[in-house]
């Protein structure tokens, strides 16, 4: 499928503010095999979330974009990812992601999208931005190793 370049610039806001919870951060840290005390200490007032936790918010934007553009998730491959942090996300933060489609291009019969997500608190503090390139494959596309020729 090809994606209309007119979608560049569309923005998508988190459906609701995300309340960063202590047990969610612990669960995430354990799932990546890194339950270090900065993330899980029971006595810490506001444990840090791991550096890639912001992706949880990024995903909300991806889902909104996939719904809007009628993209099936199983046809999406993650090509690259960048995080730029003003500060770490912490337990107790109430944050939202604002995703924007930054670019769309067709290459090798596939659509490549660059999505930027700004993560801001309910006090409008800019916490971090994430940048993702995803590739959407055609129904007919065979090999999907993610290699860029």
């Amino acid at each position: 499928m090809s994606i209309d370049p007119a979608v560049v610039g569309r923005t998508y806001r988190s459906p609701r503010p995300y309340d960063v919870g202590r047990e969610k951060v612990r669960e995430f840290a354990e799932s990546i095999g890194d339950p270090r005390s900065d993330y899980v200490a029971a006595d810490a007032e506001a444990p840090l979330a791991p550096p890639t936790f912001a992706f949880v918010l990024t995903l909300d934007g991806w889902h909104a974009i996939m719904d809007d553009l009628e993209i099936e998730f199983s046809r999406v491959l993650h090509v690259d990812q960048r995080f730029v942090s003003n500060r770490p996300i912490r337990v107790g933060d109430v944050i939202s992601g604002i995703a924007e489609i930054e670019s769309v291009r067709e290459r090798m019969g596939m659509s490549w999208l660059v999505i930027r997500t700004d993560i801001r608190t309910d006090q409008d503090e800019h916490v971090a931005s994430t940048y993702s390139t995803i590739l959407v494959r055609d129904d007919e596309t065979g090999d999907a190793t993610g290699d860029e020729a």
Partner: protein
Amino acid sequence: MSAPFATTTAEQPTGSPRYADLEVGHELPGLVVRITRKDLVRYAGASGDFNTIHWSDRVARDVGLPEVIAHGMLTMAQAARVVTDWAGDPAAITEFSVRFAKPVLVPDDNVGAEVVFGGRVAALLDDNVVRVDLTATCDGERVLSGARAFLRLS
């Protein structure tokens, strides 16, 4: 709850690295991580990434993959550990980027896939910022490329 199996390949230095003591080329302690299907299920639940290609061989094959692949973001999170274990303070990371060069195939057995991570100091920048370049290989092939983190140290 057991964490995914991981071992460091070098002794952890005591204390956090100081900017003034570092040289370009300094090698960070590496990390070896084993990823099984169970780890993918756990990460899917924790992250909210339920893309079917991370748990169904049928769907993975339908879209042209040989079998289930690990979430790129799980590999990226594990790569971050090389940096945070070394720096001591996860808050030191100001920027972190990777390219997913090749998928990590995770067979449906008890062995899973093994990913080997490494890192080295690539540049000493202004304001006590250090650039660390990271590597990740599975079966001898690079699964991440252009992986780098910027950290502000004391």
